């Protein structure tokens, strides 16, 4: 009987991790639906980006208030997780404060966790106020209605509850330590929870133990729940920000890919030795689709981008189109891509791992032509994103599909392109007049 708690703990832990692993597998499968792309270049720059942008949060501080609060929560998250290691070992082994033997260092650790926990509570509260009371414009765009808004708040609530549980557990523990109840060895420093401890003063030992145990269990169950919540939430960025900043764009922002499939065709057309009437090669693979109309046409890094997006809206709040009331919102481009990818994934789950066409696609059913044509390709969204997401590349790929597969450009643009084709300039001027300016006064 005495091993029952250990057993329950082990079962919970294994179940929590197993469920998480299953979702991670799905995540990887879905991302791999994207087209291959070579990311073996610029390795050292990529590592540098990951360390500076994800680990060092270098882009967060562009907005100092949110940046500072975010760093507090981020540090809290990383550092307090050291404590989770002890909790897991205690749970499995049936010990209590296994690391207490570290003595002074242990006190230092627990003390810093407590201070961080308090800071996290303050930061999370301020974040909540920014979202719900101050109503910053970037949290109010139409794409935030419904689940995304709820998700944003839920994350804050969960974080708050976890921190409160952590401090409650310590406060009860501290009280029991003072009363010299076994197995509550005197260990740790409690700079914050000592102020909660007086609440337990008049309670019986068994009640305090009940509080301590309840907080302990809820805390670890909460962490396992949070771990599994990630996959369904924008909070996935806490994991994916690392690979995403590594695989993010390393070339100048203005450099767009040259489509290789097009290069081949152009070379063929320009080759004076090519026979335009040659019979097409029977075995040639079907011509590649130009551009993207659905998630499978995007590259896997773009799909990773979509899962990484934390819906902060920094991109949208710098987007000239969005700022002037156009429908385009780069954040929505990323959210739509993720939603559609999830839909495709669920379709595959329901059909033994193969995608059965559902008559829908990213273009049109999620992202409208109007949004795509409003983009000025200014790269403000790419610059603003704190975790190296490139919404512009998705917009461009979809424009390519519209123009090259569907000839569906706005008529003004068709005129412009016709002019380039016929006279080498976007306006109807004769190429032979190109130097006339030099003779005009």
């Amino acid at each position, binding site marked *: 009987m005495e091993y029952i708690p250990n057993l329950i703990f082990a079962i919970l832990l294994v179940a929590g991790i197993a469920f998480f692993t299953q979702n991670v597998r799905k995540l990887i499968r879905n991302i791999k639906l994207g087209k291959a792309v070579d990311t073996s270049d610029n390795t050292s720059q990529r590592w540098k980006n990951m360390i500076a942008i994800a680990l060092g949060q270098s882009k967060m501080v562009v907005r100092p208030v949110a940046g500072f609060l975010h760093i507090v929560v981020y540090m809290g998250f990383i550092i307090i997780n050291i404590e989770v290691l002890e909790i897991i070992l205690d749970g499995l082994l049936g010990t209590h404060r296994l690391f207490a033997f570290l003595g002074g260092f242990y006190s230092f650790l627990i003390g810093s966790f407590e201070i961080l926990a308090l800071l996290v509570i303050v930061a999370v509260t301020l974040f909540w106020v920014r979202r719900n009371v101050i109503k910053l414009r970037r949290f109010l765009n139409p794409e935030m209605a419904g689940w995304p808004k709820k998700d944003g708040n839920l994350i804050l609530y969960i974080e708050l509850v976890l921190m409160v549980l952590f401090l409650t557990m310590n406060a009860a523990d501290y009280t029991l330590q003072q009363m010299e109840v076994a197995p509550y060895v005197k260990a740790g420093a409690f700079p914050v929870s000592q102020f909660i401890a007086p609440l337990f003063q008049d309670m019986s030992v068994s009640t305090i133990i009940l509080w301590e145990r309840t907080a302990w269990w809820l805390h670890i169950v909460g962490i396992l729940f949070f771990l599994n919540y990630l996959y369904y939430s924008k909070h996935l960025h806490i994991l994916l920000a690392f690979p995403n900043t590594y695989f993010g764009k390393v070339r100048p922002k203005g450099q767009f890919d040259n489509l290789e499939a097009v290069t081949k065709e152009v070379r063929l057309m320009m080759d004076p030795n090519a026979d335009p009437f040659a019979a097409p090669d029977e075995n040639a693979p079907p011509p590649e689709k130009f551009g993207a109309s659905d998630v499978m046409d995007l590259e896997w890094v773009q799909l990773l981008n979509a899962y990484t997006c934390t819906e902060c809206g920094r991109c949208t709040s710098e987007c000239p189109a969005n700022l002037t009331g156009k429908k385009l919102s780069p954040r929505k481009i990323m959210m739509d891509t993720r939603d559609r990818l999830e839909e495709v994934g669920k379709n595959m789950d329901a059909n033994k791992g193969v995608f059965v066409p559902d008559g829908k696609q990213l273009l049109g059913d999620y992202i409208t032509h109007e949004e795509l044509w409003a983009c000025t390709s200014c790269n403000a969204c790419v610059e603003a994103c704190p975790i190296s997401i490139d919404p512009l590349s998705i917009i461009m790929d979809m424009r390519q599909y519209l123009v090259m597969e569907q000839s569906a450009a706005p008529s003004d643009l068709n005129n*412009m392109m016709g002019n380039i084709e016929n006279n080498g300039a976007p306006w109807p001027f004769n190429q032979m007049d190109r130097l006339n300016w030099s003779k005009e006064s």
Partner: protein
Amino acid sequence: MENELKVPTMAELTAAGKQPEVLFWVGCAGSFDDRAKKITKAFVKILNKANISFAVLGTEESCTGDPAKRAGNEFLFQMQAVTNIEVLNAYEVKKIVTACPHCFNTLKNEYPGLGGNYEVVHHTQFLKHLLESGKISMEGGQFRGKRITFHDPCYLGRANNVYEAPRDLIRKLDAELVEMKSCKSRGLCCGAGGAQMFKEPEKGDKDINVKRTEQAMEIKPDIIAAGCPFCNTMMTDGVKSKEKEASIAVLDIAELIAQVEDL
């Protein structure tokens, strides 16, 4: 016109057995747009005064394909690129200067993958170099104490991280360089990029160039300096829509320098 512009073409120089140091890529706006042609001429005047050995392609130049590419027509872009690269490579061009950030970006970043490898600089970088090497002095002083703000072209700034060259030149004018609240890497687009120049904007509550002009007006500049023919048009239109053309001038960096050089 007191002294005529000297604008040699690559064809002429090659026929004379000469190779210029640098090719001036004029671009479509610089060749055909009335406002942009003034920028082109101002830049050529500076090149002439500094005795730079340069040439243009003239009628052999064709659109880089940038607007086609940003509109999604990769096919047309690559046709243009391959054609231009053939011409450039035939003339063994090594270095290119251009006053258009869109041409600059495309030539510099997107042509190499298609076989066109050149050293490409924006005219503000080139002018800064002329200043540093003493080929121009910029001592006219017409702009002393004037409030000048620089509107960052997206394809020069964010796209290619060139922020300082134009600013260094403005400072050298003895002018007061004032910054808009969103500038450099956070500069707001003028609204022309991504082929927007050639179409009507989507439905919204304001035009982007008007929004950008409002940002500029907040800091009460005498001059909005630009480094791109399209930004120039957009900002000029924006200033007109606010009926401020009497008090705010929109000028390219090359025009500012041509003025202080008394050209």
